[in-house]
């Protein structure tokens, strides 16, 4: 099993519909990321495929269901399953979200917004610390897409910077989410980016989003169902200039395209990473 760090190049989300293409020609993608919960099953083809793919590729495990911003502590059974998955597949990176997705024992299957205040921060940090203790390693926290704000006392960047400082976690910088949030909240995307603790960034996410027309005006919806939009690529260039080259994931979770198209999208990210490095050297 490859245990090296993930190189500072583009990788792609691992999808079952691509298993055959990956087995037929391994190592066309530099690395893969999985959603942890999709592999919480005990056995069967999902694990058989992942085991084979992991043997040839570095891996990142991205959780979507721990509800770190929730009122309740992280679910113990969920955390145990995540820890078992991490032990089994030895990923280079483990990440979760600055969001909540469960309340009163009901799971909503969406990443819901938090109020960025001290009460939330203190609770969020406790939960992150509990997860890191259970996994025995730091995790990255992803900045979310937001459709509304809830009386924040601090910016998202300040909130995440505090979480990093208090828990030792890092940042999973989702550039697409910044563009989505900026559009929906009437903020400037470059200002949001500049406010993030970019020195703590360990990975970048890129994805497509869609524009929905509503009575309240256009809303950007983070649906991961299309190519990365031009304004996201532009902000990605800005991000790379600040962070240097980082592992960058192309997320495409709905209307998943052929593997070749996904790799082509990763190729665009690779060219931008290379360009940013040559600018840095020059």
């Amino acid at each position: 099993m490859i245990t090296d760090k993930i190189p500072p190049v583009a990788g792609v989300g691992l999808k079952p519909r691509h298993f055959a293409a990956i087995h037929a020609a391994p190592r066309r993608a530099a690395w893969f990321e999985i959603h942890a919960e999709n592999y919480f099953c005990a056995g069967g083809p999902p694990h058989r495929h992942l085991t084979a793919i992991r043997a040839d590729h570095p891996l990142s495990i991205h959780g979507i269901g721990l509800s770190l911003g929730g009122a309740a502590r992280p679910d113990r059974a969920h955390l145990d399953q995540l820890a078992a998955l991490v032990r089994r597949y030895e990923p280079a990176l483990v990440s979760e979200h600055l969001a909540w997705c469960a309340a009163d024992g009901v799971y909503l299957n969406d990443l819901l917004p938090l109020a960025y205040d001290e009460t939330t921060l203190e609770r969020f940090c406790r939960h992150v610390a509990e997860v890191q203790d259970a996994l025995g390693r730091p995790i990255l926290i992803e900045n979310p897409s937001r459709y509304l704000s809830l009386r924040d006392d601090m910016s998202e960047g300040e909130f995440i910077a505090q979480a990093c400082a208090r828990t030792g976690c890092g940042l999973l910088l989702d550039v697409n989410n910044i563009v989505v949030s900026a559009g929906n909240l009437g903020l400037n995307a470059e200002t949001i980016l500049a406010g993030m603790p970019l020195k703590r960034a360990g990975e970048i996410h890129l994805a497509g989003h869609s524009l929905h027309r509503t009575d309240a005006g256009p809303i950007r919806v983070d649906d991961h169902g299309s190519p990365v939009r031009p304004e996201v690529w532009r902000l990605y260039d800005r991000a790379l200039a600040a962070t240097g080259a980082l592992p960058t994931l192309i997320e495409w979770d709905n209307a998943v395209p052929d593997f070749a198209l996904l790799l082509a999208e990763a190729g665009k990210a690779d060219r931008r990473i290379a360009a940013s490095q040559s600018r840095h050297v020059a």
Partner: protein
Amino acid sequence: MSPELQTQFAAAVRLGDSQASAAILAASGASRERTLAALQIHASTTSETLTEALRDSFPTVADRLSAGRFAKLAAGFIRRSPPRQAALWFWGDSFPDYLSEQAMPEAVVALARLDRAWHEVFAAAEAPALTAQSLSALPADALTQAVLVSHPAARLLSLPDGAFATWQRAACLPGLADEAPADAAYVLLSRPEGQVHTLSLDGGEYHFLQTLHGGGALLAAFDRAAAVDPAFDLQSALSRSLAAGAFRSITPQKDVR
């Protein structure tokens, strides 16, 4: 952000609760229209992704019903039995019963039970299957009292006429081994070589395996099968079910006693 506000947010998103929405409006930094639009985005994401998860778990049912009918049934199920954990692999086990309560035709409920069984077998834990060689190594007196432990990837079903053939023809399940559609009232689903297989059973075989899967000893299973089918062939039933990977092990003798 208080736990109470999260509870209200969840109620607004999941149930469209107007009082809860009012609480979110009061806490929002955006206009009323913008806040309601945002809540609607979250409500749509929640209901659509959970409906999609149910569709993935019950593909044959979704294929059989119109999209609108399935979505309506899913909405009712999501409201009554929302997921309690983020791993949606495990959610939906009561969907067949829900369909039955909604007075759906017996054939559709049977498709749901087949889909669910396939889903459980597909993702069950790995374990070596009990072999005929291991079983034949037992002395004759121990053999009659042997209790066989079910394999984690084995499910038995009793079905109404036509359901199994309809389910096989739908062919919308990945990894299902190619088998010619043929109707059967009794079926064993298992995963002997990494792929989900189905084995049609006669009445004797079904009651034999049902007794064994329920923890009964071989002799008791044989008696039950013979009572149902006087021509029950023990050797054939054991051979077929062992080849299909129906069992994991033999319960140690001390446990039998």
